[in-house]
């Protein structure tokens, strides 16, 4: 017998990430419940800008994705990676830097998002300084992981590690790709890409954040914790190879399914559809390998709460990954998009797959790290049932609500009128669904509290093993066996593995994004489309700050039900100066792309003023929150010139030296709008200096460039 190396696994870092995941999970879900309740009672923002829906909805999504699931990923990776490689993590200092750095980023997000500091890109809202911090921490994590892999005592990399590698390399690519922006100030930047290109890049990112942050790392965790918990061999090694490579290659292409029937060119939409459909089998490969690993152990699922959680998680994964491709078929998407159907879909994934897998792993880890038994199986079972029911109470009302609203949007009377011409009717109809959904969320959240209590009790009863002793023989020189799988070759070579997976995930993005940026015919030019005036630009930035795009789309799709309701469908050429694009992904309120003056639904400046201050005066029964602070805040024009300068640099054709007279122009336009408001009864001596005037200027500009008459008159 040759020598045996002795070493220790660091459980302390695992525990840290575990605690962070539970704490931020609870916080993120509380914020989720809060935004859900605001859809029933808008006054629950307590009249404070920082707690209004548009600002805290991204707080909820960021908290659950990056704080709850993110810490959950790291918890699982820091536990499984060293054990699968028979070596401790390479650097304890880097592990701790990773931990504290990540928590600092979460804290920064929790402060900046309520302040309205956002890049408007969904799930990438954080502004550029935080983006840089994320990059640093992420690279520290990658370095630590790769050095650990290089120092391993195990010849081959297990499938879980393939997923970790693909996750790391792809998230790096996506994070950089979607955050190429030029700073105006410390907390404001404009993206380099505009309009359709920006939309395509964002959803290339957004879709693959789901794929490579919520899916692939969790598949890796599943491949470790499922066979561990079930004490059964993984069902099929061959299946894991095929579904892994197919999954990472195909996933990247599917982003455009978020943009079906928008102004994105048809060819890119179709690529989004077909690659989503082709994702069914690779996704289900993971589900099969998870569930079939339980063959011969199904009887234990009844007794072991860990297995219960894992089974429901994998089932939810299977359902969500079948539903996703169905939602990517254009005729289904025409119904689902912009409605609560999407919300239901993502929560099956988030609550079921990510939530339950995380919980299952936590119930498995804590007793092991504390060398004791779980405090109460009964409580874990209670958590399981209340959580499962919570998912159903959440998802079913959302599906129902989505179908209801889509049907109402599209219903015509025989004489050719929209049956529900007032958008609000289709919103007030959903109240009870929203109440049921909030109840489902509350149930799910209660389950997490029960778990936290159970885990704390377990920890109290045991004693924590911070450093776990382990031993393994050093890595011997490799001897190739005859007839070994071709794939074994790459499993011994982490760096080529990294490079090949990078190539696999780069292709889809290149083929979709580059033609969009380089071939002019993809975005036909419209001569009458002009840059925003300085006042409109400031108004647009207020629109972004308040998170209006969380509830209002700016994309009239080519459907009769939309052109009748809003006006001419949106053209890609109308968005060429939109940095960032603001197409939105959910219509809790109506689309606003044809809201501007001169369109058939246009309103007067005073109407907008009154509507922003108390929406219900102009739109009784509306669930839009009030924005009285916009009528009080003075518009900050100190950065206007810088903004114009940056946009000019990015290609917006403002005249030479325009930044010097921009503020003057801004004041002139503000005075005009203030006058028009006063004429219709708005009383405020300093009206022209208020933020609301800028916002109204922007709203009145929306979708008007293709109406030549209106442009001429507003000049």
């Amino acid at each position, binding site marked *: 017998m040759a020598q045996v190396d002795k070493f220790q696994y660091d459980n302390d870092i695992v525990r840290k990430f575990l605690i962070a995941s539970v704490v931020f999970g609870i916080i993120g879900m509380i914020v989720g419940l809060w935004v859900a309740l605001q859809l029933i009672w808008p006054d629950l923002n307590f009249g404070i800008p920082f707690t209004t829906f548009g600002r805290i909805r991204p707080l909820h999504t960021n908290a659950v994705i990056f704080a709850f699931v993110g810490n959950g990923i790291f918890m699982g990776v820091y536990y499984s990676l060293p*054990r699968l490689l028979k070596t401790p993590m390479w650097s304890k200092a880097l592990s701790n830097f990773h931990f504290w750095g990540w928590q600092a980023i979460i804290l920064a997000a929790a402060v900046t998002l309520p302040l309205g500091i956002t890049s408007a890109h969904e799930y990438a809202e954080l502004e550029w300084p935080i983006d840089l911090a994320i990059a640093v921490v992420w690279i520290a994590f990658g370095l630590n992981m790769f050095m650990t892999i290089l120092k391993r005592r195990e010849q081959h990399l297990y499938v879980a590690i393939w997923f970790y590698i693909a996750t790391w390399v792809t998230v790096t690519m996506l994070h950089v790709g979607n955050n190429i922006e030029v700073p105006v100030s410390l907390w404001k930047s404009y993206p380099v890409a505009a309009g359709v290109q920006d939309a395509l890049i964002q959803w290339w990112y957004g879709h693959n954040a789901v794929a490579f942050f919520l899916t692939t790392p969790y598949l890796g965790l599943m491949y470790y914790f499922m066979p561990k918990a079930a004490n059964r061999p993984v069902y099929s090694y061959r299946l894991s190879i095929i579904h892994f490579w197919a999954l990472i290659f195909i996933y990247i292409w599917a982003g455009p399914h978020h943009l079906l029937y928008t102004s994105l060119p048809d060819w890119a939409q179709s690529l989004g559809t077909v690659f989503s459909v082709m994702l069914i089998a690779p996704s289900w490969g993971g589900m099969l390998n998870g569930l079939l690993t339980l063959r011969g152990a199904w009887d234990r699922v009844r007794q072991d709460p860990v297995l219960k959680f894992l089974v429901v998680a994998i089932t939810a994964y299977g359902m969500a990954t079948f539903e996703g491709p169905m939602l990517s078929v254009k005729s289904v998407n025409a119904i689902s998009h912009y409605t609560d159907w999407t919300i239901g879909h993502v929560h099956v994934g988030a609550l079921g797959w990510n939530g339950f897998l995380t919980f299952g792993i936590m119930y498995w880890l804590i007793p092991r790290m504390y060398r004791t038994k779980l405090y109460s199986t009964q409580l874990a079972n209670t958590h399981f049932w209340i959580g499962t029911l919570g998912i159903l109470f959440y998802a079913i009302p959302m599906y129902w609500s989505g179908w209801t609203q889509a049907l109402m949007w599209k219903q*015509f009377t025989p004489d050719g009128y929209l049956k529900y011409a007032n958008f609000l009717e289709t919103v007030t109809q959903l109240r009870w669904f929203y109440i049921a959904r909030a109840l489902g969320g509350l149930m799910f959240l209660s389950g997490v509290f029960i778990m936290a209590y159970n885990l704390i009790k377990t920890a109290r009863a045991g004693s924590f093993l911070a450093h776990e002793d382990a031993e393994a023989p050093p890595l011997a020189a490799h001897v190739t066996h005859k007839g070994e799988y071709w794939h074994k070759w790459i499993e011994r070579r982490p760096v080529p593995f990294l490079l090949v997976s990078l190539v696999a995930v780069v292709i889809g993005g290149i083929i979709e994004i580059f033609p969009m940026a380089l071939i002019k015919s993809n975005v036909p030019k419209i001569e009458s489309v002009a840059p925003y005036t300085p006042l409109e630009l400031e108004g647009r930035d207020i629109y972004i700050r308040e998170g209006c795009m969380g509830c209002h789309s700016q994309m009239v799709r080519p459907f009769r039900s939309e052109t009748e309701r809003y006006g001419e469908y949106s053209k890609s050429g109308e968005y060429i100066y939109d940095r960032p694009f603001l197409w939105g992904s959910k219509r809790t309120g109506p689309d606003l792309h044809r809201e501007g003056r001169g369109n058939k639904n*246009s309103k007067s400046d005073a109407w907008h003023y009154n509507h922003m201050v108390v929406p219900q005066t*102009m739109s009784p029964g509306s669930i839009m929150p009030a924005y009285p602070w916009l009528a009080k805040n003075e518009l900050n024009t100190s950065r206007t010139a810088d903004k114009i300068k940056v946009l000019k640099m990015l290609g917006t054709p403002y005249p030479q030296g325009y930044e010097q007279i921009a503020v003057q122009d801004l004041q002139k336009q503000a005075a005009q709008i203030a006058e028009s408001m006063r004429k*219709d009864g708005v009383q405020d001596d300093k009206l022209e200096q208020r933020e609301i005037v800028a916002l109204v200027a922007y709203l009145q500009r929306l979708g008007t460039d293709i109406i030549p008459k209106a442009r001429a008159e507003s000049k």
Partner: protein
Amino acid sequence: MKNNFRTKVLPVFAAALLPAGAATAQSAAAASSGIFTELFASTTLIATAILALAAVIAITQLLNSVVKVQQLKIYQAHGIEAYLEEVKKEEGSLWERLIKRWTKAVPVGKEQDVLLDHNYDGIRELDNSLPPWWVALFYVTIGFSLIYMTYYHFTGAGPSSKEEYEYQMAKAEEAKEAYLARQANKVDENTVTILEDEKELALGKAVYDANCVACHGMAGEGGVGPNMTDDYWIHGGSVKDVFKIIKNGVLEKGMQAWGNQLRPADMQRVASYILVKLHGTNPPNAKEPQGQLYQPEASQEQPAEAPGGSETQGN
């Protein structure tokens, strides 16, 4: 051999069927004038997928009988040993055999045979085959994708989003015309007259209360929008003028066009309600007059207010 044939060729059959269904669904969606047709279209798609699967199974059975005939021939030509070798009858019920054929899973009891020799932190791996149904599913989706792209892009046979929209609009217009041809309700801004009937005016009030009060006030006193009670009108005060403004709006000034939300009869009712019931009253908080004094040819009323006569404004 025969199994290979089935798993590799059959998906292509199915793949050929699926997109055909999808194509039907797409054009049906394009043709739809109502939501139910659209829902129908997407259900068609799913139904087609199920049908395609059923077809795969049917064709499998068909090929099975072809195989049987082949085996019979072997028996006739080479005798009983060769025949038995060829048949090697599978055991178990039909369902079990079907499951076995479509999953190719090695039973739990025999899994030692496919257990790979490595061990990662106690985790072992089996080397079960890819489940044939899963492989078939993958091929079907790939086939679907190829045919989808060909249909919509490489050949241009499928409609673009824009063409779909135009088709949908033309269809809807046709259906609407056909419906309206059977209706008597065809008033427009050239033929509209004031309704005096109290019932009609009550209906007009309902339309007014639902849509107009936010800007023009409960009593027509004005607010964001102009006052309706005085004799001053920005765009004329005849019923034809009022009807036209309701229908087409004054888009530059924020009066929206109601023509595609309100029916002509309703616009006639609300115009009448404004002119008969609101006009000439003197509500509190009335907005100052805007526009020109309008005097109908046969007016008996005096202007309720002179320009600038009211100090109060706003709402």
